[in-house]
């Protein structure tokens, strides 16, 4: 395969503000990535738009609306939409543009303005099957509360374990200048926070964020034209599960809603492509998509960072802390910023920053390889990308 390198990364500060229009946020992300790559839009051969449910911004096929904002006019443009996984799917689509030889330099860009609609969870109820499940108040919170309940039952997770994840990620988020939530919490703060959907509490949850992000990918032979130490896309994986959450339960289930074997499939496909044999040793930083604290724990074991019966003990021992031996979400993760359309792209961007040594205060020493993941649909579409410093 033709080598694909990350030549630029741009993020806006994520926030709860709604003072900028959606195209303005896309424009800001585009400007930031071009500045970071020290280049102009003329060097971009094609654009991939990362846009999740467009009902949230209130313009159907909103990718057409932001063509001018991201400088795509006159260029090839594709929009990717796999729900919450959109950002990591979009990076993969951009990588295929380059790997196929069709284009040399591709920008992947997006933004979200979750505050645009006061009805985000009502819109997210419309993702469900209209015939049997939409009549119930399903949304992205309740679907993952079901996961928490089954994970508790299967592995003995407690509300305290969830709180410990939240405490860790929020502590990391304070080191990340782009994070939306930059506040430390104690376990007591989390346990005492408002119950939303048992057992998920306010501080177990991601915020509703506005902001944009973009990346520039280029062919390996072009890295010399860009200013930073390159990070390479070394592994890609993507896998989907059944839509039906109720099929992930009961004695005849093939998968359990507590776990995500499709995440395992995606991650191991990415390891294989990257030629990684011992991922626990060869990967030094893990940016795992987890919009609620419980999701981080299953993601940790499903990407094979530890055995399933070790997860809670390792959490208690601080193994996943930024200075632990298996650091997870040094950026603060999704719990500290969730601009839905680009959240999973930010995981790849943060993995790349770690590999490039550009992560600033949340930099982990000596990262040569990092893993990023994304989750979309009803805990159903999973993407994984391995980023490395060598070819």
């Amino acid at each position, binding site marked *: *395969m*033709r080598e694909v390198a990350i030549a630029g990364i741009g993020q806006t500060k994520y926030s709860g503000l709604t003072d900028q229009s959606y195209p303005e946020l896309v424009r800001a992300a585009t400007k930031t990535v071009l500045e970071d790559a020290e280049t102009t839009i003329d060097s971009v051969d094609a654009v991939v*738009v990362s846009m999740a*449910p*467009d*009902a949230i911004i*209130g*313009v*159907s*096929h909103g*990718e*057409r609306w*932001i*063509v*001018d904002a991201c400088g*795509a*006019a*006159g*260029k*090839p*443009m*594709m*929009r*990717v*939409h*796999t*729900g919450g996984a959109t950002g990591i*799917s979009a990076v*993969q*689509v951009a990588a*295929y*543009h380059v*790997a*196929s*030889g*069709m284009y040399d330099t591709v920008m992947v860009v997006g933004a979200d303005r979750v505050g645009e609609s006061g009805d985000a969870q009502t*819109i*997210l109820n*419309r*993702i*469900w099957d*209209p*015939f049997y499940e939409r009549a119930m108040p399903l949304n992205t919170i309740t679907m993952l509360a079901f996961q928490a309940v089954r994970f508790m039952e299967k592995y003995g997770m407690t509300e305290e374990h969830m709180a410990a994840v939240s405490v860790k990620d929020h502590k990391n988020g304070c080191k990340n200048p782009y994070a939306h939530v930059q506040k430390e919490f104690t376990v007591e703060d989390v346990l005492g926070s408002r119950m939303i959907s048992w057992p998920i509490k306010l501080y177990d949850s991601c915020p509703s964020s506005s902001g944009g992000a973009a990346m520039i990918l280029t062919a390996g032979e072009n890295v010399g034209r860009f200013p930073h130490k390159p990070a390479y896309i070394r592994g890609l994986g*993507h*896998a*989907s*599960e*059944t*839509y*039906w959450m109720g099929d992930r339960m009961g004695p005849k289930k093939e998968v359990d809603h507590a776990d995500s*074997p499709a995440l395992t*499939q*995606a991650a191991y*496909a990415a390891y294989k*492509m990257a030629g990684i044999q011992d991922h626990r040793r060869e990967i030094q930083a893990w940016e795992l998509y987890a919009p609620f604290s419980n999701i981080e724990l299953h993601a940790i074991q499903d990407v094979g960072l530890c055995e399933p019966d070790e997860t809670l003990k390792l959490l208690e021992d601080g193994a996943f802390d930024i200075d632990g031996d298996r650091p997870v979400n040094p950026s603060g993760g999704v719990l500290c910023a969730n601009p839905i359309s680009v959240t999973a792209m930010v995981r790849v961007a943060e993995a790349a920053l770690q590999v490039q040594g550009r992560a600033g205060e949340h930099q982990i020493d000596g990262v040569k390889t990092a893993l990023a993941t994304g989750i*979309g*649909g*009803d805990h*159903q*579409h999973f993407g994984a990308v391995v980023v490395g410093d060598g070819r």
Partner: protein
Amino acid sequence: MSGAVGIVGVHQEPYGENYSESTLEEMVFRATRRLLEEAGVEREELSNIVTASSDVTDGRAISNMVMAGSTASYFKDSINLSSASEHSFLLAAMQIMSGLRDLTLAISWSKVSESPVDVVQRVASEPYFTRPIGINAMTSYALQASAYEQAYGPDRNLISRVVVKNRRNALDNPLAHLREAPTLEQVNESAPLSWPLTEYDLPPYSDGVCVLLLASEERARVFDGPVAWVRGMGWATGGYWMGERDLTKLPSLEAAAKKAYAMAGIEDPLEQFDAAELHEASSYNEIMQYEALGFAEYGAGEELISEGVTLPEGKLPVNRSGGALSSNPAFASGLVQVAEAALQVTGRAGERQVEGARRALATAQQGFATQGASVVCLEGE
């Protein structure tokens, strides 16, 4: 170009007014299942799936979610695009070209009968300036036709003959939605819907689903049937604001064609292609595509009609399937043109086969007044 990519399977369900007997999910499952049966492929053999869907058309806020089961995506790599149906094909081809995937489904669908099309189109316009004006596909393509009318003053009879040609072609296509052909007189006399476009100048809205199976060169060799090889592809978008675009031309289609022709080594499309399936958003728009694709000079597209060049017996039959004026599964229409071009170069187009077609061209358009466009060049064996 890296590895060659071939189309080894095409399945379309008959396009129709209303698939009321099944759910959207069921309709797509059946088409996908039938393609796999026809191609003799087990689901396990697929390397991956690319879907393309429109949330608001489907009434599902993440439309590849419930659809995962229908598209054979259970424990498969399955990526969904929402910019255009034919983008599923383009991504699948790039994945195979990269050498990372080798047997890929491209799937798109539309069940427009379940939604109010005008409202669905209206929420695709931005809310600040254009939505209050009521822009939709019809008015945007009427603005385009009107601009062309003002610039070149084409012969209305020749515009109408585009409609007659495509609708007559559809009589040979058992999958077509509209299968009765109006006379030239009927077309000329029909009432304007949005000047200068009349009812006959615009496509119907159809329910439908289209599935293609793409394979690497190595995998394609295993199939018994003829293969449609992808020789060139290009796609491009224009700016959002119609007021900034030259509506008398189709710049995004021109840009897409330039890239696709360069890849495929096409210098004289009228000579080198044997058939073309153009996603005509209106009768005027087909003539405008002739010009953007280099079949004719600007303003001279109508000559291809007056000289019969694009008739079934002409030098370059266009829309032998009947085109979008006969079947228009809204969002999925772009992929349909690619499917029909593949059938032509593999000699599998039945009654609508262009005799001896070896090279075919497919186009697609999306957004208001051809904001974006794609071109695919295929070649048989």
